[in-house]
């Protein structure tokens, strides 16, 4: 018993080392991201808004215009470096996979954003122009890019912070999309 007491500090040390080792390796593998925050919007209706369309500023877009399809809502801006990285993959999702993507052009200049879409291709069904970031605040956006998944009722089901690529799509988005499609098809789901 007395012997055991002698080893207590060592045992405590080993436990702490193990804990840190597991956490660091989980961060390294991408299993756990300490920066990631659960969105307050998950399982809630997408916030109401009324903002102009980036492509045609005379047209106002509202929350009901987003309802009806399982869709991605992608927050982007021309000042955001990761959005450049992500853009090619969004084009692929829209054209090859037929995913509905709505854009939120976040705290950006309309002319720059329009030029960007003309040059890089436009994966978005349409873009909501949010120069002040008001809608961004209501969505709980902390920076660009961020991607939200909404179901056919217009409820936010998932939020992802950072650029999407094939790996992330397969790991995080695909299971959610499959689940939402199943929900939509289920009786009473419409």
């Amino acid at each position: 018993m007395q012997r055991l007491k002698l080893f207590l500090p060592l045992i405590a040390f080993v436990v702490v080392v193990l804990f840190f080792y597991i956490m660091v390796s989980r961060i390294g593998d991408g299993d756990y991201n300490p920066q990631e925050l659960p969105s307050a919007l998950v399982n809630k209706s997408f916030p109401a808004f009324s903002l102009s369309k980036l492509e045609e500023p005379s047209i106002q877009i509202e929350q009901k215009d987003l309802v009806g399809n399982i869709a991605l809502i992608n927050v982007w801006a021309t000042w955001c470096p990761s959005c450049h990285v992500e853009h090619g993959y969004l084009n692929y999702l829209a054209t090859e996979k037929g995913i509905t993507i709505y854009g939120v052009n976040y705290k950006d200049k309309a002319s720059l954003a329009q030029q960007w879409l003309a040059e890089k291709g436009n994966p978005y069904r349409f873009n909501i122009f949010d120069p002040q970031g008001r809608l961004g605040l209501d969505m709980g956006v902390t920076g660009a890019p961020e991607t939200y998944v909404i179901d056919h009722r217009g409820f936010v089901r998932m939020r992802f912070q950072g650029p999407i690529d094939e790996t992330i799509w397969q790991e995080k988005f695909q299971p959610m999309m499959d689940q939402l499609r199943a929900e939509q098809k289920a009786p009473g789901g419409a």
Partner: protein
Amino acid sequence: MKYGLILLCLLSPLCVAVVETYNFENEVNRERYHQFIDELRCPKCQNQNLDGSNAPIAKDLRRELHRLLEDGQTDAQIVEYMVGRYGEFVLYRPRFNAETAVLWLAPAIFLVLGFVLIFMVFKRQKPSASTQGNSAELDADEQRRLRALLTDKDQPNA
């Protein structure tokens, strides 16, 4: 001079000045504003409050906070607004609920555990201390053994 430099090094991280200035209807709102930016956490740079952060989102939230205060919203409404958008995470003083119960109760639990531990240690020491205390004086048999030991200096003790 040297001490002045050291003092400067120590103080400089404390004066992260926020650039924008706001006008307030009254002093109470100003106080509340400073209280809020002190206790609300920046959702982007996670270990800073709104006061200390230069992130664009922190700036937006300060502007929004100013608007809400001047709108005459109550503290509870403002907290609700922030939590509704950014989750419980933004509160440096989290509200008590099932999720934060551990946070709030842990210090009290550890304090109680500490007292229990102290109590147990003392309780275990007492009986042994009392038996040894009474035998401080050696009885006749022990006196004899002691004398034998002292005279037998050459013998290695067993």
